[in-house]
């Protein structure tokens, strides 16, 4: 239906439509964006699912991510190998989770992954310190950073292990109705 395009088969487009929050047109547009990041590396014909990954440095230069202080962590959280190399599937996944229609729980899971710098399933004090420094571009003094991290853990930690587990994080997210609108990138 519509214009005949040869990038994906119809079956592939249906699969993408069912598994992400994008429509066919948006998937094709995303492929266009992915392709223009590295026109020599990315094939135009995806009908047989080529195994092509773009490195972190290319993805992070996209205008939507360039100024974001968490850009490296965002791309790393969605990459299979953890180093930030994204295949097209992972690229679509990233923007699908960050799109308007993704539900709160899905966004919370990935937000937790993004803020967990040392990938240990907890937001410990170091993670929070790093997050703060990236947020405020190191404008706060170290004492203030320390104080803020302590207070944050104090406020959000429910089971008393001095770190924020995913359950604590999710509980806090339910109290922030703006989370859905801030954790959103328009592509």
């Amino acid at each position, binding site marked *: 239906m*519509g214009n005949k395009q040869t990038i994906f088969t119809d079956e592939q487009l249906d699969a993408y439509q*069912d*598994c*992400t*929050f994008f*429509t066919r*047109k*948006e998937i094709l547009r995303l492929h266009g964006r992915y392709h223009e990041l590295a026109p020599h590396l990315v094939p135009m014909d995806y009908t047989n699912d080529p195994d092509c990954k773009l490195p972190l440095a290319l993805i992070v230069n996209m205008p939507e991510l360039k*100024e*974001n*202080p*968490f850009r490296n962590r965002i791309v790393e959280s*969605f990459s*299979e*190998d*953890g180093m930030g190399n994204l295949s097209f*599937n*992972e690229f679509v996944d990233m923007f*699908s989770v960050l799109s308007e229609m993704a*539900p709160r*729980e*899905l966004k919370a*899971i*990935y*937000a*937790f992954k993004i*803020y967990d710098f040392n990938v*240990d*399933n907890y937001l410990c004090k*170091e993670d929070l310190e790093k*997050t*703060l420094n990236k*947020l405020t571009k190191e*404008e*706060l003094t170290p004492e*203030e950073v320390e104080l*803020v991290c302590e*207070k*944050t853990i104090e*406020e*959000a930690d*429910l*089971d*008393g*292990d*001095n770190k924020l*587990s*995913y359950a604590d*994080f999710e509980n*806090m*997210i339910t*109290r922030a*109705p*703006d989370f*859905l*609108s*801030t*954790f959103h*990138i*328009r592509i």
Partner: protein
Amino acid sequence: MARSVNFYLSAPLMEAGLESPIDEEGVHDSFSQLIAEQSQNGGVPDAFELQQLQRDLDEEGQDNVPYLPSPGPEYRGRPEGQTGTEWEDNDGEMDPLVGERWSSATMKILSSMPSRTIGRSRGAIISQYYNRTMQLRRRRQTRPAIAGSYRAARPSIRGYGIESDTTDDVAASKRDRLVNNLQNLSGGDRVRMLRAIPLSVAEKRELRRLALQKEHRTQTASRIPCCSQLKYYIIIAARQSWYSWLSFLHSLQLWQVALKRVSGRFGSGVLSYFLFLKTLLFFNLFLFLVTGAFLVLPQAVHPPAPSIGRRSFSGLELLTGGGYFSDSVMYYGYYCNYTLRKSCQEDVLVANETRSNCASKHHSYNMPLAYFFTIGFAFFITCIILVYSMSKSFGQSFRIDKSRSILAIKVLCSWDFKVIKKTSVKLMSENICTQLKELLAEGNHKQDEKTRCQKLKRLMVHGLAWAICIAGSIACALGIYFFSDHMHQNLRQTSRFVPKNPLLNEASLLALPVVVSLMNQLLPGLFNLVAWMEDYESPTIRTYVAISRNLILKVSVLGVLCFHWLGRVATEPESIGLQCWESFVGQELYRFLLMDFIFTLLDTLFGEFLWRLFSEKVLKRKRSPEFDIPRNVLDLIYGQTLAWLGVLFTPILPAVQILKLFLLFYIKKSSVMMNCQAPRRPYRVSQMHTIFISLLCFPSFLGASVCVTYTMWSIPPSFSCGPFRGLGTMFQAGKKWMEELEKDNPNLSLLARAHSYLLEHPFFLFVGAGIFLIVIYFHSQVVDGQRKIISLLQEQIENEGEDKKFLITRLQSIHERKRTPARRQDSNY
């Protein structure tokens, strides 16, 4: 669910020097699965004990390990030693969990507790979603295909797919069971579930492929009767058409690029204004489609006999809406009060006999009825859409418990990912920094006890400010009341004599709209000035106060205007020489809408553009003005109220409003990009959105529909124009139709009688309203109950945390005790 944990090590494990204090057999089966997973994925084992553990686990083979997914990125296997040292650093803590030197096995087990792995390891995700799909299936009570159920399951439970403890089930992997569940869900549920699973897209595609493959296989294998197959095809076709409709809608992508630029530079706050504008545009589009299709088009195709004295076109019509336009399809007066029929004139020429055919043709269109029902239908659907979006927005932003984690939310949820411009990002960082410092300062010094004198002074300042604002609004309302009265008297005078200069008279009608729009733009400026001298505790309260003052002004202005139109003009139209008061009111609303637009333009020009130049050149300030979101949104709501008021009298008014909103979007967007800067104060998007939608629904739409209902119910329509001429009230058109129906078809007399009984006795309205209030009361009680439950659950979670700490310390101490005698034994040898 919890099995008893054996505190004593079993002999073979002890001999192997195993560190794990937990009896492997007693462990919950998900532990063993996860332990095995991690032991296979595990990173560099940096302790001899870890290697031992791994070897013994592999040896034992007691792990009936089902399908083990490939290692995900989240298990890069951080060596446990690191977590240990991190905990060691916090020696000063009183917390028993921290500062202890846990054995690596304990830490391994701790980190693989189910609550820690939700959303992280693939196995845990798949189990979690398997449980969810099971719950969804049970809720939907779909009967799974017979071919999919397990042969070993008891027949009574075959239909529910309940997990049975047969060996077949243990052999089937969790993934296969998830696929089975997915297959058994309906199409829409499956898609929703697939989208929500936090796995990578590649895996989701694989799950989907397996689910659909199985479905195809079961379909072909079981030879479904052809009607189910037909149903299947219909469902597939429906889904495809729904997707193509969605694609089409998305491809329209109204203003997608513009919105992205605005959000990239200003963030979610300013974006919300433009999204609100887009929402209003769609409301008006819907309204226009309905009135256009059912009112304007039929009447335009069958124009009534042209009236005498039709004036020629002069340019002033575009502003005043009168003159040439007054006798056009724009206004109520043009519409016929008879049933439109296809023109019979050419048939008369052919033969006289065909005249009878004319009357019996079913191309007839009862104009009064159509007018009545179209307006009613449009309002009804708008009401439903508004209430639905209001409740959805309310549900998203309403929080049952008072938020006490303000700092945590500020740190983790306040970064706006939409902002992509470098300067805006810098500004946002600065804002967050400032807000964090403020929050810290607040927390540190706890509210300074203000002296009584200071409190009194603050109260007085607030009281004075409110007095000024309310006095301003009342003065404005009174001013409009007297000015409109003055205009009314003027019209009375001029209607007695032949007008010397009709154009001047037309232009004088513009005076009232100009005055009202001027007041609407100037007074909020006064309110801002007054608010500047006050001192508010939080920016949220300041915003609420500004919104309420602005609202009071607009409500009073609109109230006075409605009184003027419905109470003065409509009751004695002949005194000002009007044949058709509805058309006059329609023209007034057109003028008001237009003047509102022009003054908004002027305000944008002066308020934003010139102010920026002024502050840069003269005041030498670096900061540009901020975009005042609440004020602009209230202006939009005011314009929309006028449009809703005017639909009855001017069916084309939604089209005018559409054009106005369209132009306004581009003008505001260029002004914002050129002149304004991002707001400094935090802006709660979802809360504000809820407030604005509620304001759109309650004062605005409710007020407009009350006015329209009052007009239709009580005010007698003009005698000589419009579709309701000659009737007592507009409402009687419906009544007349029921009577005609009854006459034509006596069987419907019961319906007609019920209809008239319901309408004439307001008792049922009271009963309905009473039931509604009772339902609301019950729901508020439910919310209170839920609040209590939430606090109880939080206490429970804290207790569980304490239990866990206790158990871990006890286990560790027991393990230590067991280990030291063994070591002593070893050292003795």
